[in-house]
């Protein structure tokens, strides 16, 4: 082994990378950006959950204490926990508030809540929890927090209630402890059969098809430039618009086949639950694929080779994955990241797909998202067409 040759090789490798300023920047800056973004997202304060409260509990008069309202005590406990932003509601506005998102869940205390708790044979009371339901993780969290609040409230209540109620029915304190409050959970959308995969699947489908169409387009267009055929094409009567539309058509067909396969696989093999129309689902993902083609053509201008295409992954793809509401709901991103999220086409596709698959909404509800996606597609394709012009310079 010749040490000098090894050193010369190593030196050459370092020099080559050093000459490519973009790679240097990427290797140094990209990991820092990714880490910073991750830290922001993972450390973001757990958002306060808007929770509607319908309190019909009339309480119960107890000798020597006055009116005792167990419902109100639980509400106070929930407020003290800091996890919820409590909104007093009327019974008839529950679903409306869940639908427009101004409440993620609503607890209802029936009129006889305290009475049931203190004087029913088993000392058991029921409260109703109605959840939006499309995010199973969130649903579990809300239900758990409410149960926790109820249990804490009971501990305090038993101390009061024990002294007051003992003379009347002679129940010992230990019997009343346990879980005297049962939460009946119902869902506006989706429901208990939906699991985390059902929640993730819509955005997973969108992300995968967007990602692969983007890479495919980028490489195809890059090759057109690097193998010299773009020059040859531009020396024929074909116009820029025709080239772009041809690409859109060809890659569009490939993308549609891919989307169809992904969708059918997810539904038949992975067996995810979904509501809503399959055709509408297909329309959204197809539109997103066109955005991917447009962005790919545009991005390929800024790559000299396939390696530089790979560099787009941390710059263009990963931020979209993190900020488009795939995992962290848009509404809960820190305020300064939210404008970024609104710049990402994937955000709109994700929202539309969740609306369809988890909430069963139709075109009349999701069209604004489709319109924005179409706008993205048109803007990217137009910008891509301008970059083809650059060649003619």
């Amino acid at each position: 082994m010749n040490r000098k040759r090894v050193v010369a090789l190593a030196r050459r490798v370092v020099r080559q990378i050093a000459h490519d300023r973009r790679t240097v920047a990427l290797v140094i800056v990209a990991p820092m950006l990714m880490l910073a973004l991750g830290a922001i997202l993972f450390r973001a304060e757990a958002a306060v959950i808007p929770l509607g409260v319908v309190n019909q509990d009339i309480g119960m008069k107890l000798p020597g204490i006055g009116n005792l309202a167990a419902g109100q005590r639980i509400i106070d406990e929930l407020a003290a926990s800091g996890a919820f932003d409590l909104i007093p509601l009327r019974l008839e506005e529950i679903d409306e508030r869940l639908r427009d998102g101004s409440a993620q869940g609503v607890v209802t205390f029936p009129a006889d809540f305290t009475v049931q708790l203190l004087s029913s044979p088993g000392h058991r009371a029921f409260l109703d929890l109605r959840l939006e339901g499309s995010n199973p993780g969130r649903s579990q969290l809300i239900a758990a927090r409410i149960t926790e609040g109820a249990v804490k409230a009971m501990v305090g209540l038993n101390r009061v209630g024990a002294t007051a109620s003992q003379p009347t029915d002679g129940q010992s304190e230990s019997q009343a402890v346990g879980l005297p409050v049962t939460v009946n959970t119902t869902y506006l959308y989706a429901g208990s059969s939906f699991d985390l995969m059902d929640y993730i699947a819509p955005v997973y489908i969108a992300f995968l098809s967007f990602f692969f169409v983007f890479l495919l387009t980028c490489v195809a267009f890059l090759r057109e430039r690097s193998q010299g055929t773009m020059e040859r094409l531009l020396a024929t009567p074909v116009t820029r618009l025709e080239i772009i539309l041809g690409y859109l058509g060809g890659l569009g067909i490939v993308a549609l086949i891919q989307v169809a396969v992904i969708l059918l696989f997810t539904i038949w093999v992975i067996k995810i639950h979904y509501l809503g129309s399959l055709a509408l689902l297909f329309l959204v993902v197809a539109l997103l694929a066109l955005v991917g083609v447009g962005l790919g053509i545009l991005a390929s201008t800024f790559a000299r080779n396939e390696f530089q295409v790979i560099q787009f992954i941390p710059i263009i793809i990963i931020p979209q994955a993190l900020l488009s509401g795939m995992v962290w709901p848009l509404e809960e991103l820190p305020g300064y990241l939210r404008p970024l999220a609104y710049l990402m086409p994937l955000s709109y596709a994700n929202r539309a797909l969740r609306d369809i698959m988890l909430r069963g909404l139709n075109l009349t509800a999701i069209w604004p998202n489709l319109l924005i996606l179409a706008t993205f597609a048109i803007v990217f394709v137009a910008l891509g067409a301008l970059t083809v012009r650059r060649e003619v310079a």
Partner: protein
Amino acid sequence: MEPVIRTQALQKHFGPIRAVDGLDVTVQAGEIYGLLGPNGSGKTTLIRLLIGLLRATSGWVTVLGQPMPNKPILARVGYMTQASALYDDLSAQENLGFFGAMCSAGQPIGRERVAQVLELVGLTDRANSLVRTLSGGMKQRLSLACTLVHRPQVLLLDEPTVGVDPQLRVAFWAHFRSLAAEGVTIVVSSHVMDEAERCDQLGFMRQGRLLAEGSAAALRSGAGAATLEEAFLHYASREE
């Protein structure tokens, strides 16, 4: 008769570099016009200006009577670059069909025409081979076929025989000659002097300017030189 190609006071600057610096060139129908000069003398820039891939800084270009750039006129022009510029993952036949479709203005290019140009460049037996399996010489031949497939009236060839073996080069020039005999106008750049002998008209280029113009014989005798190489050096030194 109106010349097929004409440039007047043509200039193209890239920043401070004057790649083409005041060229007046006319090429008549059925003529083979050779652009001769060292690398960097502006031959490629001139050809790209002629086909309209570049826009002149000043002066103007007409091809077939139309000022360039002009997209529709390109249906009657064939352009060949130094690199073979083909789709590696398409077959020879598919490449021809594609470029034919891009260039055809009226009726589409038929299968017979594709077969005909394949025959012309001797690739009939490789019609269905993917381009990436072809040798360098075969690619160069296919590239020429792609340039010819739509029966252009004007050919702009940028060093078409670079890296081509002598036998193939002779074959290429035979094609060019027979096309010219049919009335096709050809502009061809080269830095190989013996190719220049085969042109009807020659332009010696250096630093974006024309040193001298005329037939090979006229240029030689004008310089009192035995070879074109000596003639080129003579005109180049006179310029300085």
